[in-house]
């Protein structure tokens, strides 16, 4: 947990404390929700541009507490990167093509004692798009962040070079699975192992 996280939690805690404390004080009658005179009104002013005043000072405690809670919630909300849509046309392939997208590559050096202690800041400034299709030479294209307009990365027209013709599915090349062998479909994202 970082210092920032602790501050956010403390802020939210302060907010809740003020709201709950306010309710307790109201319950005990120490503060009242009855209106006060104009002179006793609680007012908040920010650089003479923003001014809030209330004749119900007790509400101020709730308001400030609520601001603490809301600010803590806004700050701690995880930032989800906006999705990027890829568009383009494959000129000579009509099926079986696929895209893999990678962000930059980061190198970290291990210390002389063999310990690894490095830090990277992931960024999506450049994306590397690899278009592959069976039998075709892969096409690699880079897309810079400023080339992405309204969340759309335009790959344009892609022309992949064919290297080998289609391989036929021959029975002799396919070993039969034992009876009752449960095979998840190829569309399954995979439950073990990893690839680059």
């Amino acid at each position, binding site marked *: 947990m970082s210092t920032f996280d602790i501050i956010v939690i403390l802020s939210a805690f302060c907010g809740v404390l003020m709201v709950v404390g306010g309710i307790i004080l109201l319950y005990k009658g120490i503060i009242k929700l009855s209106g006060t005179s104009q002179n006793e009104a609680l007012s908040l002013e920010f650089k003479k541009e923003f001014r809030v005043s209330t004749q119900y000072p007790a509400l101020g405690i709730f308001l400030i507490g609520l601001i603490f809670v809301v600010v803590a919630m806004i700050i701690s909300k995880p930032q989800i990167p906006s999705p990027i849509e890829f568009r383009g046309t494959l000129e000579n392939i009509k*099926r*079986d*093509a*696929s895209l*893999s997208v990678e962000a930059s590559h980061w190198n970290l050096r291990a210390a002389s004692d063999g310990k690894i202690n490095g830090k990277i800041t992931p960024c999506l400034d450049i994306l590397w798009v690899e278009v*592959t*299709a*069976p*039998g*075709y*030479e*892969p096409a690699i294209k880079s897309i810079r962040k400023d080339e992405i307009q309204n969340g759309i990365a335009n790959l344009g027209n892609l022309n992949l070079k064919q*290297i*080998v013709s*289609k*391989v*036929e*599915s*021959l029975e002799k*090349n*396919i*070993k039969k*699975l034992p009876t009752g*062998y*449960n*095979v*998840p*479909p*190829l569309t*399954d*994202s*995979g*439950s*073990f*192992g*990893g*690839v*680059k």
Partner: protein
Amino acid sequence: MKTIRLKIPLIIAVLLFSLTLFSNLVLAENYTVQGLIVKAPNNTPIPGLTVSLIHSALGRSVPATTDQFGRYVFYNIPARQEPYYMEIYWGKQLVYRDEIIVNGPTSIPTIIL
């Protein structure tokens, strides 16, 4: 004496359990599986093929794609006594399947399709 008699099977059970746990931990090591796929008769590397490992207990691996040299690499494949099946797909069409054993870093002999 009765207490000792009762304890012996318990000790044996604990020892057997520990042994099973240890053997599973040893077998749970992960290895790299790699290979090359070419097309007959000129042994031209085939790029863009989808290669996947399947296992009766583990399910299907994350699929690999052959690069421009026809190479594929799987990382973190658990060593298992039971065989894996390696499947090669041309798009969605299955073109090859065979058994492989993973009990260490594995280089599959070149597959000629």
